[in-house]
Structures are given as C-alpha cells and as structure tokens.
C-alpha cells in the first residue's frame, strides 16, 4: 500500500464476514430497550431524539466524504477531519454484538473489543465502508485488534508513550501524529494543509467549549440535564456527523438548560463516576445510578464529559506546533489507565470530588479489562484514607446482574447519605 504500512503483507488473511440475523435483531432490540430506559427520564431536551437516532443509525453523509474510523479518545478526530474525511469513533457498547465478535475472536477478551470488532463483520454494516482506521496502541486488546482489522481496512497503529511525561515524550508523540497523517494522505490520496488542520482544531475547540458549559451547568444544577442524556449528546458527536451541525444542536440544548429553574433544592447524593468507558447502548451503570436516585456530577470517562472537556491549546501557528498541541491534548491529558503514573488520574478524581462537592466515587470496572481492575486497588485505598466513600462496580455488557448491582449501589448510597 505505502511505505508507512506497519503490517507484514505476506501474512495478510482474507477478512472474515459473518451475517448472523439473530444477533443483528438482538442488537436492535438492545438499542430499543436502552432508548426505553432513557424515555423514562423526567425532563429531556426537546431535540434529544435527534441525538439518539444519530447514535443508532450512523447518518449517511455526503457520498464524497470518505469515512475514517478510529478507536479511543487517544486519536485526535481533528487529524481525520483535516483531510476532509468523516471521523467515526468505532468503540461499541452493544451487548448482542459481543456474541458476533466471539464467532471470530477468542471469548477471553473484553466485550468492548469484541462488539466493536463485530461491526466490521456485518457485510451490510455501514462500517464496511470505512476507508481507513487509526487505532492507538493503548491496551492489549486494541493493539491486537488493530492487527486483525488491518486485514479488513488499511490500518494505522498510533504508538503511545508508556509514561505521560510530556517533557520527555511530547516530540515523539507529535511525530507519531505526523506519521498517521502521512498514512492517511497515502490512503485517501489527499494532501494535508496546515490551514485545514487549523480549521479542524478550531471546530473542535468550539465543541470543547460547549461540552464544558454543558458539564458546568449540570454540576451546578444536576436537574437541568440527566447524565444519561449528557452522555448521549456527547457520544452523538463521535458518529461522524458534521461538527458544525452538532454544535448548532447543542447550542439549543444549552439554552434549554440555562432556562431551567429548579422547583426545590436538590437533595440527591452527588457522585463522581470513574473507570471504564460507558458507550451507547450500554448505559447500564448510568441507568442504575440515576434510577437509584443519585446524581453524577463529574466523570473521568473517556466516553464521558472528560472526553471532550479539554480544548486543544494552540500557541504557535506552524504545522509542527499543531501536532504538538494535538499530542498534548490527546496523549498527555488522556485519563486512560494504559499509561503508568496513576497519580494523575487519582489527582483528577480527588479534584473533581472536592470541586464539585461530591459525596462519593463510583468506579466502573469492565470485566476482562485488567487495567481498570488493577487501578481500583490503589484508588479504593487512597479515597478511603481521605474519608471519601468508594464503590467498585465490576460488570460487563450483559444485563443479567442488574439487580445485584442495584443492591450494591443502593447499599452504598445508604452509607453515603448517612442513613
């Protein structure tokens, strides 16, 4: 393909496709059930149906725009958008698709990797039309998934430092982004201009400003928007819809939130949510927390408000400075436990808990993801040392343990409220 290819062409395999109509049907049912749970939220923005349908059916955009898929919050979508392509984040939360993923991959990998992979297996799926993929070398599942997916679509693995030490590694991380750009230029046959990258960064800064305001309004008055709808709105921006349209729709939501006047003082317990990615339609943990009568007033999730909070800070106009700015934002400010130095993440959780007057911290551990699981060891002890109530909810995508999780959460809230 081109000299940036990271995979040995001699061992390329023909891509496997499966078409399991039973699973596809169940996948639609799961989306429908997730939507039904959200429909019970008392107060929702008028335009929420648009965000929901955007997530369920990846919208068909102008045919001349190529699609480029990416995984994780460690790949800058600006990099893709600067080529005039649509950036589609492919992390998937559909429990039904886990089974399809297992038809090809081993069962002993995380449900996120399996269900995301399954989106490529469906020959009629919209993602079969992705022109290229960028995956970060974050967790083991993503590294190896990139190798498997390289049989399907031209794929680039974005190397990451192990330590989030910008002083040492910012230059090499910026060079990796340049390398990813060279890869995309080769696949798409388009040259990247400094001007288009600047424009993409400017649009993403506008997005970040909106996410910040949305999060700030929610923190001040959680009744103004449920956390589930906040996640839904944010995640709709991952689907490759034109960023300007998302911005315009979110402006309407923000105006609606600003106009909210609470009838009474809010007395619900305030929680900070941390841990593994929660991705539509797997809103099980968000549903439980809100159904049990608690408010999420801050999160460190790579699929939550944390994912969009930090704007890209551009100090200098040159192309190299833009790559450095993107690396600073996407690599060195990322909350992912694939990096060592847990201190940064613990600090962020402590900061959020104190700034937002939270009563406790809930950690969502995704089964088969050792990174989050092992981080809960230190997090649990540090928070307890500081007298901050902590609950670890370890689960996967399936719904069968919902009631057990509900007991844990309710019992936790009973202690948080001091009942």
């Amino acid at each position, binding site marked *: 393909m081109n000299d940036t290819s990271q995979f040995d062409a001699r061992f390329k395999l023909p891509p496997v496709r499966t078409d399991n109509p039973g699973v596809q049907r169940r996948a639609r049912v799961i989306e429908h059930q997730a939507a039904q749970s959200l429909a019970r939220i008392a107060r929702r923005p008028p335009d929420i149906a648009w965000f929901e349908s955007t997530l369920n059916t990846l919208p068909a955009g102008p045919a001349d725009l190529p699609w480029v898929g990416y995984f994780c919050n460690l790949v800058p979508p600006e990099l893709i958008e600067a080529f005039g392509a649509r950036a589609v984040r492919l992390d998937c939360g559909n429990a039904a698709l886990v089974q399809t993923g297992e038809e090809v991959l081993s069962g002993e990998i995380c449900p996120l990797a399996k269900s995301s992979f399954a989106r490529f297996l469906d020959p009629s799926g919209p993602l079969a039309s992705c022109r290229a993929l960028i995956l970060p070398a974050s967790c083991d599942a993503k590294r190896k998934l990139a190798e498997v997916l390289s049989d399907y679509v031209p794929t680039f693995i974005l190397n990451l430092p192990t330590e989030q030490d910008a002083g040492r590694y910012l230059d090499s991380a910026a060079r990796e982004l340049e390398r990813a750009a060279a890869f995309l230029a080769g696949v798409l046959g388009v040259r990247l201009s400094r001007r288009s990258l600047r424009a993409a960064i400017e649009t993403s800064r506008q997005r970040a400003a909106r996410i910040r305001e949305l999060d700030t309004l929610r923190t001040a008055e959680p009744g103004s928007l449920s956390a589930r709808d906040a996640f839904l709105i944010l995640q709709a921006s991952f689907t490759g819809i034109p960023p300007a349209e998302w911005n315009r729709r979110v402006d309407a939501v923000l105006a609606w939130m600003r106009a909210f006047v609470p009838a009474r003082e809010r*007395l619900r317990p305030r929680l900070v949510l941390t841990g593994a990615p929660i991705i539509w339609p797997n809103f099980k943990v968000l549903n439980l927390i809100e159904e049990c009568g608690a408010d999420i007033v801050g999160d460190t999730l790579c699929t939550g408000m944390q994912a969009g909070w930090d704007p890209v800070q551009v100090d200098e106009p040159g192309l190299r400075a833009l790559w450095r700015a993107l690396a600073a934002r996407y690599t060195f400010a990322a909350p992912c436990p694939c990096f060592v130095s847990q201190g940064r993440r613990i600090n962020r959780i402590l900061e959020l808990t104190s700034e937002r007057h939270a009563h406790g911290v809930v950690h969502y551990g995704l089964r088969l993801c050792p990174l989050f699981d092992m981080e809960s060891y230190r997090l649990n002890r540090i928070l*307890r040392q500081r007298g901050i109530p902590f609950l670890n909810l*370890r689960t996967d995508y399936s719904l*069968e*343990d919902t*009631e*057990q999780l509900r*007991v*844990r959460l*309710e*019992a936790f809230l*009973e*202690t948080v409220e001091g*009942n």
Partner: protein
Amino acid sequence: MITAGIDIGSTTIKVAILDQDRVLASLVAPAGGLPAETARSIFRQALDQTGVAESGLAAIATTGYGRRLVDFGDLVMTEIKACAAGVRHCLPADTIRTIIDVGGQDTKVIALTPEGDIEEFSMNDKCAAGTGRFLEMLAAKLGLAYEEFVSAAVGSLQTVLQMNATCAVFAESEVVGLLARGEPKGDIAAAAHHAIASRIASMVRRVAYPEQACFVGGGARNQALVKTVEEHLNASVRIPDTPQTVVAIGAAVCAQRKLQNRGTTTGTEI
C-alpha cells in the same frame, strides 16, 4: 413502638415483629414462585402469633432482593443496611467488625466500624457459586437430602480431596467426575464446603477483620460450613440465636430508628 421487618430473599422469606428491643415473632418460610403473596401470608401469620393487629404497627420495613415486590411496606432498605442493624441488635454485647451472610443466591461480607456502622461490603459476583443454592444443587447431584449432605460433610472434614467450585455449572461436572473416580460422597461434600469456605475467608480478608466475625443467613445453620469457615479464617465466628431472621429483625430496628429520629426533630426533617 411495634414494627415489622420483612426480608424477601431468593429462597426464603423472613418476617420479624419487634416491640422495642423484644422480638415478638420471627418466622421463616420458602419463597416459592409468588414471593409477594407468600410474604403477605407469612406476615399475617406472624401478626396472628403475636396477637398484634396490623393497625397496631408503627411501620413495616421491607428488605432483601424482593424489597420492592410488596405493596404494603412503609420503608425500603437494602439487606446490607438491615443486616448491620440486625447484628447489632442480636449480639449487643459483642464487638463485631465482620458479618458473613450466606444466603440463597448471595454471599456477602460486611465490614463494620467499631461503632457498628457499615465500613465496606463485598458480594459474590453474578455466579451462584458459594451460595446456599449452590450447596443444595450439589447435594442433589450427589443424590442426598440437604441435611444428609451436610452431615456427610461434617463427618469427612479432614478429607484431602480438593474441589475448585468457582462456577456453579463447572462444579456440577466436577462432582460428576469425582463420583466417576469413585470418591466417597462424604469427601466430595466436605471438599465442596472447604472450597466455599476458603473463598469466603478470602473475601473477609479482602474487606474486613477475621478475628471479630459473625455468621448469619441460612448458611450459618449449616454446621459443615460454619466449621470450615472457622478453619479457613483461623478464628471462631459468633452466630446469633436466629441467624436466618437477623436481617428481618434489622429491618424492623431501622424502622424504629427512623421513627424515633423523626420524633426528635421537627417540621422540615426529610
């Protein structure tokens, strides 16, 4: 002040009627397929036993996995909160820092502060391995009544046979394999108890304090389980007189406490 606590578990339903500190009645019955109706009728039986009319109750608290299934309660709480309150009520003289509760579908370990408040808790994951239901299933697989299964285990606690028993389904095939090898049923029963007890002891060490533990729930009535848990904890455990109804008693205690707190504050209390 008379209050009632109803603990609707997966396997059994427990009702306790409490007059201040005194337990007027405590009943246990199988949950059956219609837990809400069973709860209602056990509750009636308990009232009949005490001669207290329903209108004479200050509050009815429901707890357990079916805590929201009944429509006649005034107060709902988790079994974890009720259990802590129940243990404090049933063992007032002891300093308990750990509660082990083995029920039909859950095993819980609750760590308490020196004051008896909940410090931390841990529950088994979604698999039923290590619960009462799991032991009943293995008894059936061995062709033994539950009581026979327990006494067979008590008689063979020194066995060197090992079972893994981390998954309820795999444990069943493990038993089939051991039977095929000709292992005595008593040894298999004892090995199953050891496997569960060892995991319970690990759960205790992870979140709580092995030296000051008490054991409640249906599992505390199983002598083989009590003995093996003590062995793996390397400490003796306290068992209240009615280990199965501790949670129902605790729910009734919490209802009393709630009413008393309301009485001492005025107007704006929520």
